[in-house]
């Protein structure tokens, strides 16, 4: 049992005992007061203290309070506070009977009653009253437990939301940095190179077109210039098709809005054709039942899996599988990337994947990356309705 659970049990027991003591005392004093009011002080003082009939009243209250104490002790002994409802009622009857019998015995010994039959009748009335006291205490503890659970759930939800927001902000920063680096690095360099090449081609055309120039434009020059312009065009096309597309996918994966299957298909289309790729999608329709945030996490996991397979796993084949499994808590989308090539060294450190794993756990899913055969398998999953996660 954890420290917090022990503290909770202690708090429940304290509340239970306090409730029994307070409510029992109210009954204890109330019953005596009722006897005095209804029957008169002389009637409740059968003569043991004729000179001071009020002492009898005090004795009666003391006996009643002692009964409450016995009831409380019995509830501790029988651990009523942590019992299930059925056991609670059964044990409550036992505890109440013990308290009622002891009360009647005390009343006989002290002389409040001189007739055992009357004392027994009194015990028959006292026992149900004790049960009522215990039930009220139990109801109070149950209500307190529910309030505590609701408060804890609220706190956990707030904590999860804060964690999710924090990881989202970190992820956004990472992607922004990545895109900014790519824009300032590769893209800018290529644009500078293409710009310089165009300027050089322009200068050459001007030079060749100068009137009377020895090097007037010849067919071979035209072919060479056309070839250079063609190279510039190819460079621009490559930037558009690859670099810009990669950047765009880094910001937002292709086809994500249309569903997991189109997004995975777009991802596999970017894997070099020299690597065999198997794509199994379990007849999942598009759009699927996931929200965009959950889809994004699964696709990011698949991207990491494919990147790992290509970069570190020297993949000779890659297989991607998407399934929608029906589990007791509801449907779960599971995406796995399996590659054959080089088996990763163990123990595996998740590094970049750890961030994804945390975010998936926040949504009630998880991520596993493990060596398998002559390669590795990355599996990521998320429940269809993560609002219902435990």
């Amino acid at each position, binding site marked *: 049992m954890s420290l917090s659970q022990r503290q909770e049990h202690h708090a429940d027991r304290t509340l239970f005992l306090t409730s029994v003591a307070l409510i029992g005392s109210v009954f204890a004093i109330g019953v005596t007061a009722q006897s005095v009011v209804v029957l008169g002080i002389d009637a409740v003082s059968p003569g043991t203290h004729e000179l001071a009939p009020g002492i009898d009243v005090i004795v009666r209250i003391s006996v009643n309070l002692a009964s409450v104490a016995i009831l409380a002790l019995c509830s501790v002994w029988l651990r009523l506070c942590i019992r299930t409802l059925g056991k609670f009622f059964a044990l409550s009857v036992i505890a109440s009977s013990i308290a009622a019998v002891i009360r009647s015995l005390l009343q006989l010994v002290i002389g409040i009653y001189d007739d055992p039959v009357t004392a027994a009748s009194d015990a028959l009335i006292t026992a149900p009253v004790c049960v009522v006291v215990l039930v009220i205490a139990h109801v109070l503890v149950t209500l307190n437990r529910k309030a505590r659970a609701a408060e804890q759930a609220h706190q956990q939800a707030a904590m999860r939301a804060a964690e999710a927001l924090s990881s989202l902000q970190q992820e956004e920063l990472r992607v922004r940095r990545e895109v900014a680096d790519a824009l300032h690095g590769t893209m800018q360099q290529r644009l500078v190179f293409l710009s310089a090449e165009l300027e050089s081609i322009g200068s050459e055309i001007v030079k060749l077109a100068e009137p009377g120039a020895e090097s007037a434009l010849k067919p071979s020059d035209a072919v060479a210039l056309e070839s250079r312009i063609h190279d510039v065009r190819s460079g621009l096309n490559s930037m558009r098709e690859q670099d810009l597309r990669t950047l765009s996918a880094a910001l937002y994966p292709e086809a994500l809005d*249309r569903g997991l299957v189109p997004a995975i*298909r777009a991802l596999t289309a970017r894997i070099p054709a020299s690597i065999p790729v198997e794509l199994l999608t379990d007849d999942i329709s598009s759009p699927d039942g996931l929200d965009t945030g959950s889809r994004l996490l699964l696709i990011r996991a698949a991207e990491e899996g494919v990147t790992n397979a290509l970069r570190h796993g020297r993949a000779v084949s890659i297989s991607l599988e998407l399934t929608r499994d029906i589990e007791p808590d509801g449907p779960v989308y599971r995406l796995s990337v399996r590659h054959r090539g080089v088996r990763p060294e163990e123990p595996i450190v998740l590094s970049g994947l750890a961030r994804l794993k945390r975010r998936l756990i926040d949504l009630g899913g998880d991520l596993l990356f493990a060596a398998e055969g002559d390669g590795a398998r990355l599996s990521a999953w998320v429940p269809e309705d993560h609002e219902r996660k435990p």
Partner: protein
Amino acid sequence: MQAPPRVLRIGVVEDQPLFREMLQHLLGSVPGFRVCTAHGVSEASAWNAQELDVALLDFELPDGTGLELGRQLRQANPQLGVVLLSAVDRASSLLEIDNQDRWSYLSKTSATSTADLVRTIRLAASGGSFIDPNIVARRTPRAGSPLAVLSARQYSVLMLIAEGLTNQTIAARLGIAPNSVNNHVNAVYAALGFNNTTHNPRVSAVRAFLKDSA
């Protein structure tokens, strides 16, 4: 008396004003073409698809995708030819469509050429299904896939099928006899696992090309 030439009604949906105007100008100047334009899904949704022969749709639109819009228009008019336009190769998205018949894919680079654009529209209007030749040429068969076992000639024939050419045109393009093309086509179908029950094998071959090339 000779019947007047059929007017082709073309719906163009493109969000970039400059490109939309260019397409409208290129297509509008062709005799027998009637063009209407929209800048997004919501505007084009108001069209009566029955009054269109071809829809030329930009893939990425501000309020949706050309793919979804094409589906919607095709539901209203099953005979409509749909041509998706994109600056990058997203032709694999055609695999999301159950019945790829009469769906085509054109790169925006090709769309700037009047000849390519007109050929595309006429092919789409006649019920053809094709992929932009520039996109087809850039792709290579994926290792380990059925495409990888095709001979160079068979793969060339498949590429031309993907471009929407008939066997006769393929024969002329490759400079071989139509019978040889038939043989190559049958070999391609066999390699792709098609049999007599395969529905519309030409369209299925294009799907296989999109699925197993990169």
